[in-house]
Structures are given as C-alpha cells and as structure tokens.
C-alpha cells in the first residue's frame, strides 16, 4: 500500500502540489482525475522520484521512499506507465520489454500474459520501439510496466491513443490485476467512463489540491463529471 502524506511540490517557484495526502490500497484501483494542468502528472513523477518532493513523505509498505532514486522505487515494486509513452525508441520491442525486467535477474522472462493482452507486441518483437504507431507504443509502455509484476502499478492516461477494442482489453486486465489482490493500482485518467468503470475509489484534483474523494461506485452520484467540466 502506498501512503502519501502532506506532499508539496514546486516547479521553480510555482506551487504545483499542495499538501496532498492519500492512500492507494492493495487490491484496489484508485483513480485520479482532474482537468488539464492541475498537476496529476507532476504528482506521479514525484511518486516515481523524477522530481524531488519539497516536503511530505511517500511510503510504500514499510519503506519510506521519499528520497529514494527512481530505480530504488522500482526495485521496491512500483511499475510506471508514463504519460507520453516514453518507450526507448532505438531499442527493439523485445528489448523494451526486457528493460521492464531490469530489476529482475537476467534469466527472467516476459510473462506470457502481456502478449495475450497485446498480441501486436509479439508480431513486432524485432521492430524498434520508435517505429511503432502511437497506440502500439502505448501498449508497449503498459506491457513494459507489467513485465516485472509490480506491487503497485501507476498509470498516466494509459488509454490515450489506443483503439476502443484494446481499451476494453486493458480495462479487463486492470480489473483482473486488482482483483488478484496482489497489486495496488493508481490510475490517472481523463476518459471518464473508463475511469468510473474501474475505480474502487477516486480522487479529484484541482490546482494541485485534492478537492474530492470517495468510493468509485459513487462517482456519478457525487457529481465528479460535472466537477471536471466546470
């Protein structure tokens, strides 16, 4: 379980994250919603150690990760699907997936499940990541994060650019991963329907602050959609 408390974050001088506190429990999907530019991606980057937290703590299970470098967080069991895919353009698809196993011993294999979810990856094993189409890259990014079997999966708008049928597959897969009870999932999503159908609990951000939170099933009732479109 990921526990974030009193997190503050600045870019230069502008206060981007204001005193955030929340939990991402194992076995559940936590969705984070918010309009463009409210700081969702910044929050995830802070969780990954890509930008240092100014104040506050990030704990994962027993460990305090607030000051750890990114790779230590991955080692602790966090998987990350960044916004904008960020695949390694000149590595082949196979190598990109192997990169997902960087914290595993060299003998580790890419789980078969990933190819079931994204068959196109198998077809394109030898192609360089940068040559894939946008949607294919997105699938690769998700596959890469899942390869090492993380205990916490962080996804930043994972459906962006993906064709509807595969979005459905992803939805099913996330559901299944959460229900297996071994994984905590933090999902940032603009696509409301998708977010709602997956959310066990939700968080809404506005200008760096959490302004709403609640059970996933109450999202409609709580008026989250309206809140997002003010």
């Amino acid at each position, binding site marked *: 379980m990921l526990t974030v408390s009193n997190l503050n974050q600045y870019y230069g001088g502008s206060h981007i994250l204001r005193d955030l506190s929340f939990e991402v429990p194992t076995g559940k999907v936590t969705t984070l919603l918010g309009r463009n530019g409210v700081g969702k991606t910044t929050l995830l980057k802070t969780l990954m150690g890509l930008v240092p937290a100014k104040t506050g703590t990030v704990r994962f299970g027993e460990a305090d990760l607030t000051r750890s470098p990114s790779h230590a967080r*991955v080692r602790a069991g966090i998987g990350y699907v960044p916004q904008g895919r960020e695949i390694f353009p000149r590595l082949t698809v196979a190598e990109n997936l192997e990169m997902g196993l960087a914290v595993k011993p060299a003998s580790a294999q890419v789980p078969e499940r990933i190819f079931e979810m994204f068959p196109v990856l198998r077809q394109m094993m030898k192609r360089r990541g940068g040559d894939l189409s946008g949607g294919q890259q997105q699938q690769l990014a998700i596959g890469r994060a899942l390869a090492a079997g993380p205990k916490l999966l962080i996804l930043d708008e994972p459906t962006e650019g993906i064709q509807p049928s595969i979005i459905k597959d992803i939805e099913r897969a996330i559901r299944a991963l959460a229900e297996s009870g071994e994984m905590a999932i933090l999902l940032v999503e603009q696509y409301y329907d998708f977010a709602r159908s997956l959310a066990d609990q939700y968080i809404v951000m506005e200008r760096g602050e959490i302004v709403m939170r609640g059970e996933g099933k109450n999202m409609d009732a709580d008026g989250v959609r309206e809140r997002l479109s003010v």
Partner: protein
Amino acid sequence: MVRLLFLLALLARLAWSPACAALDPAQLARLGADDSDEKIAAIAALASADPEAVLPVFKALSEDALFVAGDKLVRLDGETYIDVATGKALAAPPDNAEAVSINNRVRRTLDAALAGLRLFASEREVRLTAAKDVSANASAEILPLLDKALAKEADPQIKQLLVLAQAKASLGSPDAAARLKAVKSLADSADPAVRQLLAAMLDKSSGSYAEPDEAVRIAAVASLTQIERRIAVGENLGRIFTGISLGSILLLAALGLAITYGVMGVINMAHGELLMVGAYTTWVVQGLFRSYAPQWLDAYVLAAIPLAFVVAALVGVAMERLVIRHLYGRPLETLLATWGLSLVLIQAARVIFGPQNQEVANPTWMSGGIELYAGAMLPLNRIAIIGFALFVLLIVWLMMQKTRLGMFVRAVTQNRPMAGCVGVPTRRIDTLAFAIGSGIAGLGGVALSQIANVGPDMGQGYIVDSFLVVVLGGVGQLAGAVWAALGLGIVTKFLEGWAGAVIAKILVLLFIIVFIQKRPQGLFALKGRFVEN
C-alpha cells in the same frame, strides 16, 4: 667495384678451401684499424677462416661488441670479454678498451660475409635469412657458393630461394643455355631487381640488343610479363593491406569514442588523452618488464593490454564522477569541460613523464614483417594490430549488443528518466559505460604505441580522425564506424599512392564533406520515424 672483388675473393675461398683452425692475427689487427678499406680487406681475408671461429667475431663487430684494447682485440660476449686471438675469456674487463666502429660500407661487406657463413648454419631460420640476404645481392661471383649451399640444402623453401639466387647470378653467364635456363626459372620471381635485370637484357639503346641470343630474349619477355604481373598484384595487395591497416588504426582510435560519444552522447574531447593514457601505460609496463623481468620482455604488450584497459577505465571513472556526471543532458557543455580535461591530462603527462616522446619498442614477435609477395611486405606489428582491432571490435560488439549492460547503456542514453523508472541505476550505468569506453580507448592506445609516438600530445592527432570515423559511420552505429574506418583507410591509401599524402588527406576530407551531403546521418544512418522527433 673494389667491394665486389673482395666479396668475390671471400666467397670463392669460403666455397673451396677447407676451414682452417685459428684466425690470422695480422688480419685481426687490420680489423681493428681505423680505415674502412683495411677493415674490409680483413673481413674478406677472415671470411675464409673456420666459420666456428670467425662467426662470433663478425657478429661482435656488427653489434659494436668488438674492442681494441692495446694491441689485443677482444669481444664482449654477454658479460664476459674474450680475447679474439686466443678465444679465451679475460679475467677482468680490459681498461682502455675502445669499440671498433664500422660504417655502412663495412657493414655491407660484413653482412654479406655473415650471410655467406650462415648459409651453412645448422638452424633453419638462420639459413633462411641468409638465403634471402644472399639472393638479394646475387651476382655471378657467388655462383660457386650457391652451388655448394644448394648441394647441402634440404629445406624446400630455402632451396627455392637459392635456386632463384642462382638463376639471378647466372644471368650474366657467357653460356647462352645457362642464361636461358636462368631466365626461365626467374619467371617465378617477383623481385623488382630481377625485372630490372631482365629489362636490361632487352635493352636496345646501343643499337643491338644487350642479350644476343634470340631464344633467351623471347624467354625473357615471357618471364618479364609474369614478373610484372606479379609485381603489380603485389603492389595492389600491399596497398589494400596498408589501407586495411590504416583502417584498423582509425577504428581502434575511434572505438572508445563510439561508446562514449556514439552511445552516451558525451562529446569527449579528452578521448585522445585516454588513448595517450593507454599508450603511456604500455610504456610503463615495458619499463617494468625491462627492469624486473627481462626474460619475459616480449610479453610486455600482452601484459599491457589488460592494464591499459584498467588504467584508462579508472581515468574515465574519475572523469565521469568528477565532471561529466554533472553534465548529462547538456551535451555541448561536455565539449567545453572535456576540452579542459584534455588540457589537464596533457600537461599532467608532460609534468610526469616529460615533454619528450617515450620509446616503445615492438616486441620481437611484432618486429619485421612477412613477405606475402615480393614487394608486398606486411609488417608484423601492423598485422598484429589488425588482429587486435578485430578482437576489440568483437568485445565491444558483444558487450553492447549481447549483454544486459549494453542494453541498459543504450536505454539510459535514449531516455534517462524512464530508464530509472524501469529500475536501472542510471548513475552507475553511466559510470560503467564511460569506464568501458575509456578502457577501450586505452586499448587503442596500446595499439598506437606500437606504431606511432608516445608523447603528451599524441592524442591530439587522433581526435579529428576519431570523430570523423564515428560521425561518418553514423553516430551510435558500431557497424558504421567499422565501415567508415576501413573505407577511409583504403581510400586514403589509394589516393596517397596517386596524389601524395597531403593532397590525399585533403581529398579525403572533401570527400567526407560531400559524402555527408548525401547521407546527412552518416553511413549507417538511423532510419525510422523517431529520428526527427
């Protein structure tokens, strides 16, 4: 002419008279004289003495180890002084000993005498060298010697050399049949000197042909064409070889850069100095071997290889930790800082080792050359370097393409933050990769020490070429660097033969400029949609 007469006398006598036991003291005294003519006469006279007795004396003379001490002639054999006249070792080194010095003229006579004597040596290698020497200077006077040697010789290779020498020597024979035979057997030669001789037979400048016999002339024409073809083949082989050899050197100089720059994106202006570190390490290792293990001296290069890698890698680690680490993502700043580093390293070398070049000798197994073909002499050090380049290339390729480390390195350089986010300890990978690139540069330095200067400035001479190779090949493309290096090497060498070194170099540079117009991303351009963005 005088020299030739002496030669004749010496060789003739050697061939006919049985060996006599002791050396004539009068001749020995002349050997120690100041005048070259005296020395030459003495050598000629002594050459007919017992080979066992005279060989060591001649050897000593040719190695500056013969001394005049008062009225005695002594030679130095290892640590002991031996009285030449008596053949007995002296108890104490003579005071007032003065070396008998020789000049090239004396040395030529001496070499011929030595070669003649050595034709009958028991070691095959010695005879082989002697046969080569003899055949290079074969003339009618030494025919009897050759006959005698041929009669004794069993080794086919030496025999062949002697037969050729015999043929060469017989060209001047008054007997037309002998000449014909000689001309025919010389068809197997590829020696430009033979071509010269045959061409002279066909010379018609004095009205009639120099060679009176028509049949011999016809055979000479036939042989000449064969020889000329062979020489032409030899020349082209030689040129290709020199091209490949230059290419392998360019490659060794550039491989380290292909990693530090090509893969990691660090514009490492101190790359040349890493080569220098490798070369100085080689020199230091050589010095250590000379002092502490002279019997293993020939192996110093082998010992230098791992050491140069380690030392250069450590320098690389220091550079990375102290400077470059703070500059990732600011590639052009690395240019400035590494230029500074290169100045510091050069000056450090100058202060520690002095501004002069250091002497690095090829181990004996890398000295000299093998004659692939007459005219195409392949120096052993060049061959060794070509092999070494292949070896280093293989290592680099395996490391970058076949290991996880290589993959991590490539990933880190393509997307540093994301590499961290899949669990790669990016900083450690950076250091490691830079260390490896530097180590490879160190290996390049070992190779360079075998053919070029070892001095504080040596690296500066390679930096332009190294970058050219990496860039021409296509940044980050190992295969590209290989082709670029080889291509540049061969093109340069062919142009050089035709236009001279300076123009060739200018042409090659212009060629590169034009070539990049056609392939703006180098020979092995990265293709694909990600290139632009």
